[in-house]
């Protein structure tokens, strides 16, 4: 709270930079659309107009709800599961050392190759998308949490005990604030990857959802709809990431 006045100018600067990037993106998009023609992509203004029109149609909303539900559940599973696994593995040194390389290896596998297995396990419904989204998101949350918990400085805990803190107070007032910045970074990446996983699931095999709408539009070469849905998903992903990044930066600022 006290450091607020000091960071004002840099916030303005960051907003200015963001605006510049946005303008550059729109300009190159417009140029690409003019160059490629309406068979390849629609212009920014057309896309926005069609996106507004699309969201006005009643057939759009069941698909939106499907994706939103799948993503929310996948995100909750990824975050809670990752936190639980990360804390358990981080608190016990040996287990953490055994499992961390396994998680890092899992992180680097292209999980799309496992999607047929996920489909066989969960069927074509929403469960497969949730599982696939959660699979993507849970790994970074686990790795970041594990490292955050493992790197809690023992001297801080000793100092806490020397000041007469109970074990519960030590966790609440030392372990939690010490690990939160790293954990939030993990959650930010986990939420992005969970969205990726959910969307991949919808694109490959699904009967509902924004990914399904997108695939149907591709089948009939409906460029306007493809662009409009891509825009909507991008805006959501960007907004979520920006919000998480803002929290992330605030927390990391002091360390």
């Amino acid at each position, binding site marked *: 709270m006290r*450091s607020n006045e000091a960071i004002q100018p840099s916030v303005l600067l960051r907003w200015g930079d963001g605006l510049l990037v946005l303008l550059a993106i729109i300009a190159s998009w417009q140029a690409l659309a003019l160059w490629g023609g309406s068979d390849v992509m629609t212009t920014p203004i057309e896309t926005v107009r069609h996106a507004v029109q699309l969201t006005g149609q009643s057939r759009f909303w069941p698909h939106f709800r499907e994706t939103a539900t799948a993503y929310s559940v996948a995100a909750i599973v990824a975050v809670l599961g990752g936190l639980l696994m990360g804390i358990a593995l981080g608190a016990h040194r040996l287990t953490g050392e055994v499992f961390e390389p396994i998680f890092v290896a899992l992180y680097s596998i292209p999980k799309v190759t496992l999607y047929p297995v996920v489909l066989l396990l969960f069927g074509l419904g929403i469960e497969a998308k949730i599982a696939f989204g959660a699979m993507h998101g849970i790994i970074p949350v686990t790795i970041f949490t594990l490292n955050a918990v493992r790197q809690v*400085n023992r*001297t801080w805990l*000793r100092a806490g005990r*020397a000041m*007469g803190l109970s074990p519960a107070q030590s966790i609440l*007032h030392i372990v939690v604030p010490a690990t939160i910045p790293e954990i939030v970074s993990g959650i930010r990446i986990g939420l992005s990857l969970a969205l990726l996983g959910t969307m991949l699931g919808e694109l490959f095999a699904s009967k509902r959802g924004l990914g399904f709408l997108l695939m149907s539009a591709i089948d009939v070469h409906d460029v306007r709809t493809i662009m409009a849905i891509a825009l909507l998903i991008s805006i959501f992903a960007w907004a979520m990431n920006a919000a998480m990044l803002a929290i992330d930066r605030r927390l990391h600022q*002091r360390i």
Partner: protein
Amino acid sequence: MTNEHVSFRDVEQVFPARGKQDPVHALGPISFAIRPGEFFSVVGPSGCGKSTMLDVMSGLTRPTRGQVIFEGSPLDGTVPDGIGVVFQEDASFPWLTVWDNVAFGLRRRGVDAAEIRRRVDYALSFMGLAAFTKAYPSQLSGGMRQRVCIARTLVMQPRLILLDEPFGALDQQTRLLMGDELLRLWRETGATIMLITHALDEANLLSDRIGVMSARPGTFISIVETGWAKDRDSTLAELPEFGAVSSRLWALLRSESMRAMGQHAASRSSLAGKAA
């Protein structure tokens, strides 16, 4: 308890065997007492159990055998009200400002806000940190961070302050200045101080008495009285008597330090033998 602020009664610390390592007899049996208001230092060869002694005296570690009596009652495995500890490593919390770091212990103890403000502001100005209250530890030098830790201990108004090589990581000039500040703090608070250090000159300069420890398992081979006036400072180092005390300390420690180095070499070669 009139002449014993804190005392060890046949204290022994043995760390149990871990894996292929043999159990380590770190400390004792040792019995001694520190007088109320005394500045007591402990010097000894590296690995002799100095830090173990501090852990046991603070209540952070329960000794394997024997008892620690603080102000008349035995310690029960927790750090009692009235004992403050300053660690060798930087123990400041990087997520809190200097002010919030210093207020940390008082807040956990539920002291009311006005009293916290009064005590924290006093401790910060006493330690020369008044200009840095809103800074985070990462913005401070190592010496300043250690001051934050001392201030954080000070606000709890301890009657016994234990310091484990608090200036170990600092450069020589900063060490001398911090030593003078420690003396000032000691005079103004009237607290009893136990300082662990490996610097003989530092122990000599600051202390009323200096316990010289043996190689492991650590006990005192001698306790040296310095006889310095209470209002001493680092100019003391120019006196001939100062040199005499330093020589005496070194004479006591020389053979122990060599023994300690031998222990290290022996444990290394036995490990090497097991590996081969």
